[in-house]
């Protein structure tokens, strides 16, 4: 179980990395934490002539707050996101999502940028990013641009990145007072790939009317997807178990999961998917009522 031979590079900055990717266009891949890439290389499910390891680039793992946003460097590990006091306090959904990824070892190695760029429909980060209407910043030697979460996932394992572009950071809005978020993940065993999952971010006014609703889904489509129907059903409505149940019911319309011989048929995933949207919304509501998160 060894990867096919490849050339290995350790660029010092994004510019260098981007040049390498451009030079070896179509035959190169960025390596960050390696938690997804290394296994598929070892199983020879894929191969690249050139591996560009960006894990040594300095300043790409910072977590900071700026102007109502939290910026997370692409190389921040899942564990660092989970442990960040700032994120725990102001973007709890991100913290909770991190805690569901893999096991301790994976969380200590894997990075948020790597997880997003892998664009696995069963990945957890994409749902949280969609629910929070976050953005990613991508850079190349030509400059930088910003991509909205909704536009980032083109297809399974296909992010909206140019050949020489590298995801440098993730930006999350801070929802502030009367907001809460939660990630409900169904897994066959601790740390497993999601059978399915629902990430929810809510903000209500003083009358408990939903001012913001974000719902991202895991393993319920060809990519992480947004449940627009459920969001629409809930926005402007008072947050009650009934309105949540209605929204969850309508989320089914947005789901188009694949059959999986190990983790469940499409039919099962759709049925339980809407249940998980409901559970996530109920939990988010309870957290609002409890005044925490």
């Amino acid at each position, binding site marked *: 179980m060894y990867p096919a031979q490849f050339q290995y590079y350790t660029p010092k900055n994004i510019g260098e990395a981007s040049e390498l990717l451009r030079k070896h266009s179509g035959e190169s891949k960025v390596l960050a934490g390696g938690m997804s890439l290394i296994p598929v290389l070892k*199983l020879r499910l894929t191969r690249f002539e050139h591996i560009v390891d960006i894990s040594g680039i300095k300043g790409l793992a910072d977590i900071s707050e700026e102007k109502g946003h939290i910026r997370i460097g692409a190389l921040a590990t899942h564990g660092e996101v989970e442990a960040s006091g700032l994120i725990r306090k102001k973007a709890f959904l991100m913290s909770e999502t991190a805690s569901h990824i893999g096991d301790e070892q994976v969380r200590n190695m894997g990075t948020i940028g790597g997880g997003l760029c892998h664009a696995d429909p069963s990945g957890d980060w994409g749902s949280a990013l969609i629910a929070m209407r976050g953005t990613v910043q991508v850079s190349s030697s030509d400059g930088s641009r910003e991509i909205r979460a909704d536009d980032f996932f083109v297809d399974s394992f296909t992010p909206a990145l140019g050949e020489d572009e590298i995801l440098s950071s993730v930006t999350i809005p801070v929802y502030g007072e009367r907001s809460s978020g939660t990630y409900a993940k169904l897994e066959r065993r601790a740390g*497993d790939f999601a059978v399915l999952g629902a990430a929810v971010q809510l903000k209500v006014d003083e009358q408990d009317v939903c001012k913001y609703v974000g719902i991202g889904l895991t393993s319920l489509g060809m990519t992480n997807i947004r449940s627009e129907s459920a969001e629409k059903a809930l926005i402007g409505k008072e947050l009650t178990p009934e309105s949540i149940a209605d929204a969850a019911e309508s989320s089914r319309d947005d789901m188009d999961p694949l059959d999986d*011989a190990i983790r469940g048929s499409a039919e*099962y995933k759709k049925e*339980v998917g809407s249940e998980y949207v409901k559970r996530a919304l109920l939990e988010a509501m309870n957290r609002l009522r409890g005044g925490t998160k």
Partner: protein
Amino acid sequence: MVEQIQVTQEERRNYIGTSLRRVEDKRLLTGNTNFVEDLRVADTVFVAILRSPYAHARLLKVDVSRVRKMEGVIEVATGDDALKYSQPLPPYAISKFPSEEYCLATKKVRYMGEPVAAVAAISPELAEDALELIDVEYEPLKPVVDPESAMSKDSPLVYDSFGTNVVGHNHGKWGDVEGAFKQADVVLKKRVGLQRYSSTPLESVSVIATYDDISGELTLKSNAQMPGHVMMTISKIFGIPSNSVHLIINDIGGGFGLKTRPWRQLSIATILAMKLPGMNVKYLEDRTEHLSSGGQTAGLMADIEVAAKKDGKILAFRFRDINNDGASLTYAGTYASMHATLISGCYKINNIEWDSYTVLTNECPSMPNRGVGKPGIVYIVERMIETVAQELKMDPAEIRFRNFIQPDEFPYVTPSGRIYDSGNYPAVLKKALEVSGYEEMKKERDRLKEQGRLVGIGITTYIHGASATAREIEGITINIDPRGTASVRSGSPDMGTSHSTAFVQIVSDIVGMKPDDIRVHPFDSYYSPWTPFSGTHANKFSGPDVEAAVMAAKLLRQKVVTNAAAMLKTGPEDIEVSESVAFSKTNPENKVTIQDIAKATYQNPYLVPGKIDPGLEVTWIGNNESAVKAFDATKEIETGATHQLVTGSGSPTGYMTYPNSAHVALIEVDRETGIISILKYFVVHDIGNVINPQIVQGQLHGGVAHGIGVALMEDFVYDEDGQLIASSFANYLKPTTMEIPNIVDDHVVTPSPRSSLGIKGIGEGETFGPLVTMCNAVEDALSEYGAKVSTLPLTPEKIRNLINRA
């Protein structure tokens, strides 16, 4: 020989029965290990194996001309080399058909992952790259993956020359089955099935093979768990004398049966070694190779019909089972045969008909796995009992009490001619009910059910069948060297099973030595005694291995006592030995250390005044008298199954000891998702006396955890083309500690009369319980839906469908 051993003095028990800290741990935990991977030797070449991507295909061409030219590739082997160097792989149980299977495929490939060619190169990475330069032409054939389809006349044939895929059939009929069915108040039918699964040892199969073409010596450094079978089989496959096979077994990272018959892996390495004399040919099977071709259990499907009276008394049952042994004869038939071994479980049921089929398919060959067919028969019998209890609305504990073999009925002869040694099944279940607070638990369940929660209790009681058969004799050498330290060499290797600790406890107590003075050596066929059965399998340690150790230790003690008496100028009857010191019982100040005895008997044996017995070494091969007697009795009456051994003729399969267990669990089902949570889990068992309680607890916990994995998630899923979907740990789901509940355990002790220490086996048995317990608990939890479970694993979707369909 047995009669000559006289140990008159009462044996001291300082260590047997205590949780002596494992002597293996310090070395293992500090990383000072000798797994095959750890062994770095000069002149090593690394093996990679090209495996079939097809489940069934004709092999038209294997062209190695390109790979031979690749830099770094040293040697290549194909099916042509297998034909030239080796014999077909021998079957263990079925002799009706000639084996056509070689370690490398010849005319056909018969399962995804079957070895087609192998490369030896200067690095493992390069070897794997080289496989891409081997040009193979396949003509894909229609595979057969469903065992019932494989039985039909128009099925594709796994082996064309056999003319059938049904390679084994057993039929047994005992008592008056028809008559009993006529008297029944209820007759019920049930279909049950077990998936193919594996205990997946952490370390997969590995070997370093070296061939000396001058001496003709073949050295295998491997993690095989049955050195006896390796010595017999490799010498046969390669036509070399067994005393030229130098087998060295250092650390083994778990075996569970999957390392008992690694013929393909060892043979491929051996062929390359023979083509490269003097080179060390190293092969480390990777995880995907191990999962897809290292061996899986035989899949089981059984149709049961049972007859019972209204009071819960089971009158009779009949069942037909189909066993899917995959694409090889090597172990086929053994899973099925085990059903006869525990055919009526712990119940007094005398009217039984058994109709059993062993079928080949285009799936991975079967291999022994923690209990072989015993989990299957336990599953059949216990699910049947549960079905009757449900129909009669009888408490599942109560129906078992009504059918148990009673404690005064031992030795108990089962319909299929096995003789249970001892036990107290009612006491074990009674204690399990007490420990689990069963009556309270039922109330708790009912209370939670009223709240709308799906909570259920599962109970099962069953027999393990342990300590191997008495015929599977083991060899041991115990030696105290001239400096007074003891060495133990056994044919039974430690594979994480704490052999060393247990041997140290036995030798310490019986000889009278400090544990620190004793060392247990790894297996080396040039220095360790061995028999065809030598190995760690079938809970054998608790049987023949311990008996050999006890016998040898007693004989060694006799030598120590004789020599001490001469040196202390007293009679042997006056000598006690403890903590490496021999002393006079009447005058304890008159003493001599074992070190000084060793010095005297080796260095100046004839200066000691009095009669001494020079040298302090004993080798013993055999079994104790009561075990042999029991075996002889079984041999006369046993029907249903015989094993065609690699060594020759068939042989009975009655076990030396029959431990038993009761498992009780409380679970909850998530109504919307079908996810099962285990709230409480209890095990009470009777494994007789215990050598080391902590080690037993570890075996128990590990067994239950694996059983829960099989019950809830583990499954070698194949698609209709015979492609294995679960070929890595991403898709072959093993439970984590998060899915395993705290396990509360307790014990009942009925010492086995066939064991000189009164012990029974523990290695396999606790894996069986959860398979049944989880099904019973789920049906109890879903009683409002009347849902019935038939196959494992109990996936969330399967549970959800049961609820939806109701």
